[in-house]
């Protein structure tokens, strides 16, 4: 029995409008509620659970890991432990790889020479491009292969969300999101990966803050510099048995300064260009799980280590070539390296560094890991990147010949921590934000901060001492 109503499209639309008005915004709620009601009914029918007698393991763990007394000390100790394992464990494989790679280089260079290749071809290909690659692989691969799996274990255990939980209060005070702690942890591995990880933050303002400040946690490419400085200038003051702990402690100190700057800059951003209140925050604390070793090795080796290594290789090859060219092209009796570093020297001295270090940072924009070898190369006036065999020799070179002081070391650590992100990170920022403006801010703001901070430290130190 069909009722005869005039059903013109206008009438239908009008009716739809009336119905919508009657629903009072709640239909989405009702959909979610009914889904959960169904799920609950099914769960009640299928799952049987007894009430446990005491607190479960998870509850006990949470009580310790998030307690007022132990929460933060455990976090710091965990961080220090990861650095210590990485520092100690990466030492030998790094040396072995370097030895292997340089044997290959010597052999290949000899082969080129015997085939009658011109010296500049041999030099550019083997002492320039290849050596840049070899250095980056041997310096980066072992620490990453240790750092990423260790880190992934913590992630798999379910500890990282607890770190975000512990830290959230601080991030709230500076107008940011607690999950920024997670993206910072990723930044320890690689800032580009950290910037990508910012996708987990669901409100746009806080995500942008996290992207712009991720650079303030030192990445794997910068750790070698920090570790070297910590070893030469900090650990040297301790007995050998304690040296590696002292070095790890110094690196933790630098990281804490980085965390401080992250919070400070987030605070400034959320009161200036990214004005706004801290928005909604929800964080799931998943149950603790036994780490799945196979999966850890797969995700950390394939997804992270090889990914990061590959992009470093892409960047390091041309940089190696550039270094070789700069050092081997002479104008007016001095190499280009000499000219440029001489030109940069006054600026470098003003912030506690020197011209060579600044030049190294310009060349190392594509990959931070080649900073130290570039510095050494320029100091020795050698035509290619070098690694000195022992830290004692390095110490003799830096302190004895080049007059590095504790101030130089501190300034370099600060500069390394705060300066502009590498080109991969900048490119990733651009891809994640889709904005040239934010990318420019993300690249130039840290650079300005690095100059200001180092200048202040250097001038204060010189005035006081």
């Amino acid at each position, binding site marked *: 029995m069909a009722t005869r109503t005039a059903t013109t499209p206008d009438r239908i639309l*009008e009716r739809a*409008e009336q119905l919508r008005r009657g629903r009072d915004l709640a239909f989405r709620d009702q959909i979610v509620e009914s889904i*959960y009601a169904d799920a609950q009914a099914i769960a009640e029918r299928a799952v049987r659970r007894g009430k446990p007698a005491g607190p479960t393991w998870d509850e006990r763990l949470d009580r310790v890991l998030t*307690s007022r007394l132990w929460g933060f000390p455990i976090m710091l100790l965990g961080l220090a432990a990861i650095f210590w394992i990485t520092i100690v464990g990466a030492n030998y494989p790094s040396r072995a790889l370097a030895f292997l790679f340089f044997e290959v280089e010597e052999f290949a260079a000899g082969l080129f020479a015997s085939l009658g290749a011109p010296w500049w071809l041999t030099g550019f290909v083997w002492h320039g491009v290849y050596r840049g690659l070899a250095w980056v692989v041997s310096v980066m691969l072992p620490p990453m292969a240790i750092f990423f799996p260790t880190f992934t274990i913590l992630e798999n255990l379910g500890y990282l969300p607890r770190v975000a939980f512990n830290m959230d*209060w601080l991030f*709230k005070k500076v107008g940011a999101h607690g999950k920024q702690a997670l993206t910072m942890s990723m930044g320890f591995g690689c800032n580009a990966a950290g910037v990508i990880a910012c996708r987990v933050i*669901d409100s746009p303002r806080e995500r942008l803050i996290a992207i712009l400040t991720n650079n303030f946690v030192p990445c794997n490419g910068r750790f070698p510099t920090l570790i070297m400085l910590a070893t030469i200038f900090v650990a040297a003051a301790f007995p050998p048995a304690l040296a590696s702990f002292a070095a790890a402690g110094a690196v933790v100190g630098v990281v804490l300064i980085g965390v401080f700057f992250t919070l400070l800059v987030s605070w400034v951003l959320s009161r200036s260009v990214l004005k706004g209140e801290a928005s909604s925050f929800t*964080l*799931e604390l998943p149950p603790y799980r036994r780490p799945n070793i196979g999966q850890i090795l797969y995700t950390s080796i394939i997804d992270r280590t090889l990914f990061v290594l590959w992009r470093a290789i892409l960047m390091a090859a041309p940089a190696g070539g550039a270094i070789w060219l700069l050092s081997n092209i002479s104008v007016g009796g001095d190499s280009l390296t000499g000219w440029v570093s001489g030109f940069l020297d006054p600026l470098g001295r003003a912030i506690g560094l020197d011209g060579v270090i600044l030049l190294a940072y310009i060349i190392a924009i594509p990959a931070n890991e080649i900073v130290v070898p570039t510095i050494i190369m320029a100091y020795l006036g050698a035509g290619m990147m070098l690694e000195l065999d022992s830290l004692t020799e390095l110490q003799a070179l830096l302190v004895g010949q080049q007059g590095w002081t504790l101030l130089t070391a501190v300034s370099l650590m600060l500069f390394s921590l705060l300066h502009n992100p590498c080109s991969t990170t900048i490119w990733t920022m651009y891809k994640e934000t889709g904005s040239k403006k934010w990318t420019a801010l993300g690249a130039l703001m840290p650079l300005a901060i690095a100059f200001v901070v180092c200048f202040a430290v250097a001038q204060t130190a010189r005035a006081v001492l």
Partner: protein
Amino acid sequence: MLPLLVLFLALAALGALLFWPRSGLLDRWRQARQLADRVQMEDALKHIHAREARGPLGTPESLAGKLGVTVKQALDLVSGMEESGLVQSTGRGLRLSQTGRKLALRVIRAHRLLERYLVDELRMPLEEIHAHADRREHAITEEELDALEARLGYPQEDPHGDPIPTSAGALEPQETTALTEWPVGRPARIVHLEDEPPETLAKIVAAGLAPGMQIEVRRVSSQNLVIWDGEEERALPPVAASNVSVVPLPHPVEAPTRLTSLRPGESGRVIKLRCAGFSRRRLLDLGITPGAVIECAFPGPLEEPIAYRVRGALIALRREQANEIEIEAITAAAE
């Protein structure tokens, strides 16, 4: 020969720069002028519409004041709109024609939907959205508006409590009373906060008032209205209170129990979520739906955030989120 050629090419380049269709300077300037004209006309329509609904009818003088133009410009604008059949001048002031009203409602719909979007999805503070929406409302197309409305779930009110016109152009007026006219001691529900001027709105928001709140006026003095919301007293100067509109509440003011009142180990049942938009969806997705049992598990080392156990999952919330969740306490015995 060569200088002539160069001169010719230069002239051609200059001509192209000026007169190129659409992207030439002349056309761009014309487009900008057209947009500015439309913005002015739409703002004028909004003003006349607002005056029709409340207060004396708009006049060219009031229009000039509102738009920040001279009275002569306003007169030109009005006669232009009369020619296009959008408004009629009557003895007491300006009235919208059928077409004019439809256009005005379209702009108002754009404005209020944009405000809803800015608050719900971008979580902008209430006192800032008006200016943003004022800028954006003229550039958005009809299709974009429809899509936005669907995305927002067909909201009926803007964040200040004003009704949003439908796409057909219907606007249901609401009988409301200004808070300053409301008798002391009678329960009321806030339905609307006037969004202009923004400074006053900021004061109202700072006092903690929001649309949907149940309140009662406790005391009135020449400096302050003391308002009670079931939990605490809030003071508001009368000049700000006149921008708050209320409707009668059929029952006494009920103090809501909030999730924040739970101590570790205590449980409650969710009654409703007070937030809208993005944060509401997020809470619902996590299983915090009306009826769900929620237990306060433990606070963080710095007291905030607090972890809650709901449906077997552990979820950390900041104080602001927990405050937006209304619950009823349940004792261990009742479970």
